[in-house]
């Protein structure tokens, strides 16, 4: 009963500080919402993240038919918004960041394409958009690789047909024939029929087309295929095949802010010591173990309340998944909170003053958050950091929430994270009780 009275007293004090409550409860939700707006997820759909990449195409003399086709082809993919400009405008657009990249096609592309000349397609990249410009370059490089393979095979199969043999007159014919829209191109072809250069060009073209057709057909018949199995989606997908990113972000931010609030609760020992109320309580019939258990319990109750409110709000606001059964999440919440309170209670008991505890706990919160996967998925870390991450409690807390909320896997299927948290909680509780008793006896809390 005395423990319950002490816990009630602590909770009343906490509930009295509404702004602190607001920060602990509202801030994780606000940050989760910001991340949702940034990267998409839940009711915000999948519209977040990188938007269509603005690309400028540069070609001085490309026939209209080809520019239209290239524009349509690039925009159909949904990755790009395409505009055409001269090289100086494109250079300025990329340098100022209006376009992520410019694709500069060589001058006299059509004529030179049908000759043996080397061609260089340039990609000018925005220095402020390393990621987007990198995507443009990578997609172009992949598309070009297949063409390069085909051309290398063609020239190794029919070395007699060196494209250098195409004279200037014939190259001009090709350019004129392809100039304009579809109707104009057709009219160009019709009107050129009597021309001897055209006849020679047409014969060469028939031969070339036969070879291209055979090559194209052969390249479609892949002999060795690569069957690729990607890693399973990081989380359970909805009916549209989308992963709700809030299932990752909300637990992550919740655990992060939980560490701050738990540190605050544990720091209360020092506040009580400074104001003298701790000493008064220790002089009462209350035993030191009872006092310590009451402090531990009130910190756990506050933490559980905080996480439950956040997760329930997340379920309502962001359609966060609360797990496959009714007991996995509460159990994970409870073990996460007991382990967290154990860690920060230990820090409080090891710290001489509130100020030291304040600084120490903030350092521990931030470093643990980084190592335990609250700031970045632990899978993305280098091996040595991943190894270190296993030694912070929030790693196991994040893992248990990830399993339950993102993977929709109950504790029964993977009990390890919750078991680790439970064992850590028990060990730390015992250590904290012994440490508190030792400090009281040595007069360290007087």
């Amino acid at each position, binding site marked *: 009963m005395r423990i319950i009275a002490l816990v009630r007293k602590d909770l009343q004090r906490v509930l009295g500080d509404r*702004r*602190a409550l*607001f*920060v*602990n409860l509202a*801030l994780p939700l*606000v940050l989760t919402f910001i*991340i949702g*707006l*940034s990267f998409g997820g839940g009711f915000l759909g999948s*519209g*977040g993240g*990188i938007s269509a990449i603005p690309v400028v195409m540069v070609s001085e003399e490309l026939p209209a038919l080809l520019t239209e086709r290239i524009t349509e082809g690039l925009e159909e993919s949904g990755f790009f918004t395409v505009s055409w400009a001269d090289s100086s405008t494109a250079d300025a657009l990329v*340098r100022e*960041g209006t376009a992520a990249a410019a694709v500069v096609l060589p001058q006299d592309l059509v004529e030179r394409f049908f000759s043996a000349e*080397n*061609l*260089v*397609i*340039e*990609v000018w*990249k925005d*220095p*402020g958009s*390393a*990621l987007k*410009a990198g995507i443009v*370059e990578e997609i172009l*490089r992949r598309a*070009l*690789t297949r063409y390069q393979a*085909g051309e290398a*095979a063609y*020239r*190794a*199969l029919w*070395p007699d047909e060196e494209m250098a043999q195409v004279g200037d007159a014939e190259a001009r014919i090709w350019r004129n024939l392809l100039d304009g829209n579809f109707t104009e191109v057709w009219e160009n072809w019709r009107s050129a029929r009597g021309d001897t250069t055209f006849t020679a060009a047409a014969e060469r073209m028939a031969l070339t087309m*036969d070879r291209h057709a055979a090559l194209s057909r*052969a*390249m479609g018949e892949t*002999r*060795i*295929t690569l*069957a*690729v199995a*990607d890693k399973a989606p990081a989380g359970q997908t909805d009916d549209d095949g989308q992963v709700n990113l809030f299932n990752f972000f909300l637990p992550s931010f919740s655990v992060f802010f939980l560490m*701050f609030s738990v540190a605050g609760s544990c720091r209360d020992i020092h506040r009580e010591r400074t104001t003298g109320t701790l000493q008064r309580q220790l002089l009462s019939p209350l035993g030191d173990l009872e006092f310590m258990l009451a402090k531990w319990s009130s910190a756990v109750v506050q933490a559980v309340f905080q996480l439950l409110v956040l997760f329930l709000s997340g379920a309502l606001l962001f359609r966060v998944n609360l797990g496959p059964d009714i007991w996995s999440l509460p159990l994970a919440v409870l073990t996460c909170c007991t382990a967290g309170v154990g860690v920060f209670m230990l820090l409080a008991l090891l710290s001489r003053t509130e100020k*030291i505890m304040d*600084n120490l706990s903030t*350092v521990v919160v*931030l*470093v643990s958050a*980084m190592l335990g996967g609250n*700031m970045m*998925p632990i899978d993305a870390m*280098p*091996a*040595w*950091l*991943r190894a270190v991450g296993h030694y912070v409690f929030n790693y196991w807390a994040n893992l248990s929430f990830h399993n339950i909320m993102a993977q929709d896997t109950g504790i029964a299927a993977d009990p390890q994270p919750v078991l680790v948290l439970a064992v850590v909680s028990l060990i730390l509780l015992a250590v904290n009780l012994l440490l508190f008793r030792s400090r009281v006896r040595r007069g360290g809390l007087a």
Partner: protein
Amino acid sequence: MNPAVIRAMLMLRLRRVLSDRSNLVWLFVMPMVFSFLMGQLMGDWNSGGPPSKPRFMVYDLDGGPAADALLAPLTDNERFLLVRADTTVATVQARAAVEHSRITAALFLPSGFSEAVAAGQPLEIELFYDSDRLSSQTVRTLLDRSLLQINTVAMANGLVQPPATGAPAPGMAAAFDEARFRTLWDEPRVALVGTTLGRLQEEEGFALTKSAQHLGPAYTIFFMLMFLLLSAKELVTERHDRTLARLMVSRASSVDLVLGFFLGGMVLGLIQAAILLVLNSVAFGIDYGDAPLALALVVLLFAGVASAGSILLGSLARTGAQADGLGVAVTMVLASLGGLWWPLEVVPQFMQTLGKSLPTGQAITVFHDMIGRGYGLADMQTLFAGLGSWFAVLMVLAVWRFRRLISG
């Protein structure tokens, strides 16, 4: 205005902050720790990834020349370590190893792979990979390319008309010159060349492709803002301790007090920024561009914004705990929206617009533009005007609120 009072307040603030060693941790140590650790996590956006090489396991039961040819372009890669095993494991185990990030990818080459390639027979090989990992994506890209080469050779050999069957039919060739094919493969006629424009475009992979170029300035801004906003509780404490009231009955006016607090915060912010920027430059090789005036102005304006914000917060909060909580909240929200945690280019356009309207977004964009584009003062007038406006608005609000507090 009484310069002596202002100077005394400024010196007192500096002495208080710098004499407390724990403050030095927040001012200088933690920002550097964050820059280092986050740099380790983010790696190089364009080409690096984490510095340690994850393993790419190849379970090679063939061991023939085609397997060697397939894997040749994947040896000695900077992003992964190719490990060839002549035994195999169950595919379930390989998949689990990829799922748990123990390896970056796993490839199974069955026995008879080389024979199938030589005979042009169809065959399927299995790759387990993780599309979220750069190293794994690289494995797949290189394998796709290597396999394309092998398939193209096999396909081209299929277009060679057998000897003694007369002239080649349309679309058939008399022979396939494989040596010529390999030369053309290595030196294609149509090539793609990527160039990053900007102030140092001749340096390959320069500028913001290195995450440190973003993280160094980003965490400098973040910790400047956090330290100054969290120091708002000092103003609350001074109110509670009645030291402000005591100063008011002396020769100090409210303007002196505001200026004293403001300059104290601003000087602290400037000292912090200067040391952090130098440390980042020395430790991580960060290059801040060629516009020292712009660099000085952005640091000055941002320190002003943070210091004015700190006074406003200290005037609004009733208790130290409230000031702390609100300081953390404002810092986190401004950091996440303003692109200090991730570059703004990865968020939708409306979030970019919102981010660049905030002081954090404006400050980090100035850094990006100086580093990557080589911009100077004249090129970034809009951003500086934005930062200046934030400073003016916050300063007016801070003075107004502070004077009300004093007079009330």
